[in-house]
């Protein structure tokens, strides 16, 4: 594993099974940043813009 990551010291065996994701090409199409807005009421700079979830009971 250490050769895979060009490390001199030993790494745990978990590194053999590591999975890579979120490549640069993916980032180009990732528009997640546009989904957040600052919100004073809830004290956050990252309020997620989303459709409200509808509890099942409301659909009955």
């Amino acid at each position, binding site marked *: 594993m250490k050769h895979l990551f060009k490390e001199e010291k*030993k*790494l745990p*065996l*978990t590194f053999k099974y590591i999975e890579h994701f979120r490549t640069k090409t993916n980032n180009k199409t990732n528009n997640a940043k546009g989904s957040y807005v600052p919100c004073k009421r*809830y*004290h956050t700079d990252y309020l997620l813009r989303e459709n409200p979830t509808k509890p099942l009971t409301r659909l009955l």
Partner: protein
Amino acid sequence: MILIISNNGETTTTKVIKNLSKMGKSFIRIHEDEFFDIKTDRKRIYLVSEKNKFFLDEITSVWYRRGGIKFKRLRYNNNAINTHMDETQHWLEDYVIKTLESKKTINKQSNSHVNKLWVLEKAQKAGLSVPDFFLAENTDEVIVNKTITKALTENVIIDSISEHSDAIIYTSIIEQKEKKEFFITFFQEKIEKDFEIRSFYLDGKMWSTAIISQNDEQTKTDFRKYNDKKPNRKIRYQLPKDIEEKTHQLMQSLDLSCGSIDFIKSGDHFFFLEVNPVGQFFGLSAMCNYSLEKEIAEYL
């Protein structure tokens, strides 16, 4: 006044705050990027940052979600004075944290990061079934295809591992022996599961969800390898009373009032896997209509 310690971008915190607003409960939300000064005013202690200011005696309950309260520390030129003042400031900060944690709390900053190995031992002592586990630097004791490995860390995502990507360490089955030694690794007996169970625990009460992940090659070893095209079926589930009671004992022994707990069911057995005090629960809450964010808001 409710104090919420969280991260700026943590969406579940916002869901709880929406419920607090609806209930007319006042709150202060503090973030990972805030640094507080400890000040006094007429024998009362207050904390002040660029965004927030509050007296300790105003706070009635505390929800430690993520992040933590950070303090500004003064540095002194004289090394001896600096060491003394460092300790002085440490004890002041310690007093503030202890005072806040002595109030009604959902988890605590001081013990919200748990050691997976320690938790497994505690779970065994509480009477829960735990798949056999061990640490090793080679695969001599590993039974191929019947042993899994996973990270000892709380966070399994490694950001920017290379120039172009992040990485994630899922639970994986060991498929072959290794010739060379490696850094100490966690191994655990692989259990053939009927399904996985994710439970949310709050102050002795549990809400559980069965995750039917075993029929999908992608999710059968780790359901977090989400299949977005065909998501796992998730349904409400009631754990047996004795499992809930033992889990309650475990959480008490860890001094945790809240957390997400993973089990797997195999035949008549329920195997405890791990507890995550700061785990994400909103997805399962919405899926099973548990309204856990409302439960938290009511508790605070």
